[in-house]
């Protein structure tokens, strides 16, 4: 623990001012949380979606064409949630 605090002190000393350092750190955290959390949520959602699609197609193969169009609609709607997080993180990082 002491080593970590020592390293953090060195890093803060390297930045111009502690305020600037805190600002940079906050931006990096925002981008990481936005992109990482968004990717985790969208990953879970897309995985569940395709799992359900496989399940329903194996149960009722004759519904395959009908399921396919709904499947891509759901995929795009779920995937977009990742980009909401990413865009929020990018806005925090660059502005």
């Amino acid at each position: 623990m002491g080593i970590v605090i020592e390293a953090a002190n060195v890093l803060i000393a390297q930045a111009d001012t502690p305020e600037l350092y805190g600002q940079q750190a906050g931006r990096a955290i925002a981008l990481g949380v936005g992109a990482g959390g968004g990717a985790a949520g969208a990953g879970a959602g897309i995985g569940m979606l395709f799992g359900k699609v496989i399940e329903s197609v194996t149960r009722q193969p004759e519904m395959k064409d009908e399921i396919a169009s709904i499947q891509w609609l759901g995929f795009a709607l779920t995937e977009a949630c990742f980009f909401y997080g990413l865009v929020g993180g990018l806005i925090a990082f660059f502005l």
Partner: protein
Amino acid sequence: MSTRRKIALGIGGVYIFGMIAIVAIFGATRNDNAEFLPQDEFKLLTWLDLPGPMDLNKGVLYLFLATALTIGVMTYVSKRMQARPNRVQTAVEWLYTGMRDKIVRDNMDDEMARKWFPLVCTLFVFIWISNMIGYLPLPVNSSHPFNLFGAEIPSFQIYAATANVSIPLVLALIVFFSYNVEGVRAKGLWGYMKSVAIPPGVGGGILFMIVPLEIMSQFLRLISLTVRLFANLLAGHMLIQFMAGGLAVLLGLEVLAWFTLPAGVAIYLFEVTLIAGLQAFIFAILTCIYLGSAVSHHH
């Protein structure tokens, strides 16, 4: 040894040899490049200063390009319709019937479908073509020009009109006003507002919580339509840019580009084959769903 195995071994050998060669020539030390700003790739520099808000820049060029291609290709194909279709005509006819039967007619009645099919089809084709020309590298990046025999030439980059927030926002606004006007026309102003704000089968005290949520969700549709299209394109372009060498330039670490290049190629293919068409399809089908739900009497 089979041919496939020989090819795989050859590619693997070239990959490892290239890695060693790059490390031997350039070394593997990191020296950060402070001059290269990746966000400048998406900055819109004014090229031609015209009066009013009509300045010509990168986004406007891509918008004109996409519009010209949409109008040009579609009129060209429809003017040269033949009884025995060639390959392009078959593809366009497949697209047309697919759009008409699967997307538009599934979500609204026949009379409305006839009225709104041109808008939905145009939106689909425009967004798809705009996305696709976004994946061709064109010399438009004037914030990082390079010098060729004394002439300043903007470097090549990938950019799309839909990767800027304003174009998807305008398209989403068109959709938003279309379905609201259509809903008001079908049910009258008061009836439409009631059908938007109060879901069927809900009554009593819970309405105080449901009504603001329902009204907010109408405006969130506008944001989600815009951000879905724009962020998909922007994030795709940024990923391709970083994986194809931007990260290596930013960190000054040459061997990193060799590692990230296969990922860049994979993301590029994924974006071109799936995302470009899928986003256009989603925009079109959501337009139809919103239009259909605005006039339907059971919400």
